[in-house]
């Protein structure tokens, strides 16, 4: 099965605007997507949404600038000032793209019981992992869960490798 580029673009728009259509397509695409990634697509195409996320965090919060710099030669004061830019922008971007909530309810540091048949993806046991459920332990980290995902629709014509364009100011 091959879908022309234009059709793919049209579909992307429709998926953006039409949830029901998106579900129908989603089913159809599940197998197709697997097949497609096996084909000759370059990695940046296969992982375009990952690059998009980097581009978003760079655009909104200069994350790539921040991570690409050595911190050793700078004072905490200077790093702190830059971190405020990163935190302010990336925090906003994160909130726009996802709804994020703790993976489990409960206060960190408080005792917690983990029942039999627990969700081993959402809960990881640490320390003396032995015995039979329910396990008695202490919640060390409540984890995070993306309860909603609102990824942007990205034009397939763009080169996903461009995380941020160079800027040339004309006078």
């Amino acid at each position, binding site marked *: 099965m091959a879908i022309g580029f234009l059709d793919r673009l049209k579909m992307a728009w429709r998926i953006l605007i039409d949830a029901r259509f998106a579900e129908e397509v989603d089913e159809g695409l599940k197998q197709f997507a697997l097949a497609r990634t096996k084909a000759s697509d370059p990695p940046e195409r296969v992982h375009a949404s990952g690059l998009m996320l980097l581009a978003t965090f760079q655009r909104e919060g*200069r994350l790539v*600038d*921040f991570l690409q710099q050595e911190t050793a030669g700078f004072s905490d004061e200077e790093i702190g000032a830059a971190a405020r830019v*990163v935190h302010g922008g990336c925090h906003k971007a994160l909130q726009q793209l996802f709804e994020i909530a703790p993976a489990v309810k409960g206060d960190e540091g408080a005792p917690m019981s983990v029942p039999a048949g627990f969700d081993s993806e959402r809960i990881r046991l640490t320390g003396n992992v032995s015995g039979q459920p329910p396990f008695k332990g202490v919640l060390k980290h409540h984890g995070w869960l993306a309860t909603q995902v609102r990824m942007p*629709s*990205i*034009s397939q*014509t*763009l080169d996903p490798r461009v995380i941020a364009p160079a800027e040339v100011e004309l006078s």
Partner: protein
Amino acid sequence: MATRHAIGIDLGTTNCALSWRNLEDGSGDVGSIPQLTAPGTIEERLLLPSFLYLAKEGEFAAGALALPWDKKATYTAGEFARAHGAKVPTRLVASAKSWLSHAGVERTSPLLPWQAPAEVERISPVEASARYLRHLAGAAKASRKLDPQSEEIILTVPASFDAAARELTTQAANHADLPNVTLLEEPQAALYAWLEKVGDGFRKQVKVGDVILVVDVGGGTTDLSLISVTEREGDLQLTRMAVGDHILLGGDNMDLTLAHHLAQGKNLDTWQFAALTYGCRQAKELLFADAKLKKAPISIPSRGSTLIGGTMKTELTREDVTRILIDGFMPKVDITELPRTARRTGLTQLGLPYAQDPGITRHLASFLTRQSRIAEGKSFVHPTAVLFNGGVFKAAALKDRVVEVLKAWLAQDAGVPVKELEGADLDLAVARGAAYYGWVRHGHGIRIRGGTARSYYVGVEPAMPAVPGFEPPVKGLCVAPFGMEEGSKAEVPPQEFALVVGEPTVFRFFASSVRREDRVGDMIDDAARSEELEEVAPIETTLGGEAGKLVPVNLQAAVTEVGTLELRCLEKGGPGRWKLEMNLRTKE
């Protein structure tokens, strides 16, 4: 047949919003607006920033500005337009709505971006507004599957918009292929949103005799309205009694003032200044949200990739916020204080006529005292309740200051203290209220009455001998009284008007937001110099027919269902009918 909907559009100076309501079951909500947040990247937001970026050919990859409803877009509106435009100010259209109400420029001619280089293809304020409307219509279609061409559209305008600005707004809607548009004043929309929120409970919150003051401070404008609560045959009635003048002063001015204060001694480029302004807004919100905070840090990022070491640091202190924002924009003033008006030179008229006095409380004092005719013998109109609208009032300290000032004025004048009506969402209330009004128009809930908020006058030059150096006083003939309801007509009693056929005839045109007692046909002496009258765009017509012939006519004014004013000349004892067009070009 498909279910009908009302679509509410808040076409704001700095942000637009969208809402919808099902006209069968009354359900509805605000609608999200897909928009470019980066080239080729579309995300949904609740607000569409009212910015247009007119791209240079080849500036972006092919299709990078495409939208689901406009694949070949050469410009972009919304978040990316604002962000990128901060780096390319000469291609950015901003504040189109303020230009739409600026009688000092040719509003239908291409003049935006203001001061763009010759190469940029400029657009008119009407076209800019039409482009936002096209985007919003596309969004309604894309995200809610509504057909904006067949649904009822409620488009909000500032209460202070005069007949010409309303007419231009309707033109923009026509350009955007939106045929079924009704205009609604923004402060009324805010009150509708409140009415929707409190439901039947509103009877407990307001009573007969109450006067509700709506203070709507948006990004770019301050809009004031007074709405009275009366009773008729046992039912509560709401009537919009008065609206304020057009004041170009809003939340953006506040953030800019803070940024200018903090930018002193720093060498910032336009982009960094925009980043500082944004930072000021964030810092201000932090300080307003937490009364214990003494200061809030602001980082101004470097333009280059060396973020660490290149980022500048500054901070906004509580003292700054109190002095600059609260005392600067909401000073404690006496009710008798008037806004300062700086003497203008011809040159300053070229840009937007921003308010010369940032003191919103002074503008408020002037509004309440000017409306002396409805003050019932008191020295100013006493509001009994106040409803706030606009993002500015997320800061409780600013609301508190307005209430404090109002209470002081009322106490001095032996009035009762004003109470605050808890409003709905400050950013989205106008859009919500607009769609709710669509529901109200179909016979649900309570409707705010009021009609036109101004009376209108045609200038009549008296027959008198010319005296060199002396401009004869122009009389104002009332053609449309205050409070004309939508869909009503007013016939001007017979006057000696004779128009020359085949030549354009131009009338001077005046409006008053305070003269509510004038009836159609009343004559005001010396209209041009009256403190109560304001000259607006002239009106003109060209009567077709045998050139040079004189035709005696009567004037007729009508308020359309859309909410715009129409003036016609009717031939005396004949079939001739000619529409008088508002000349929306430069006011002389």
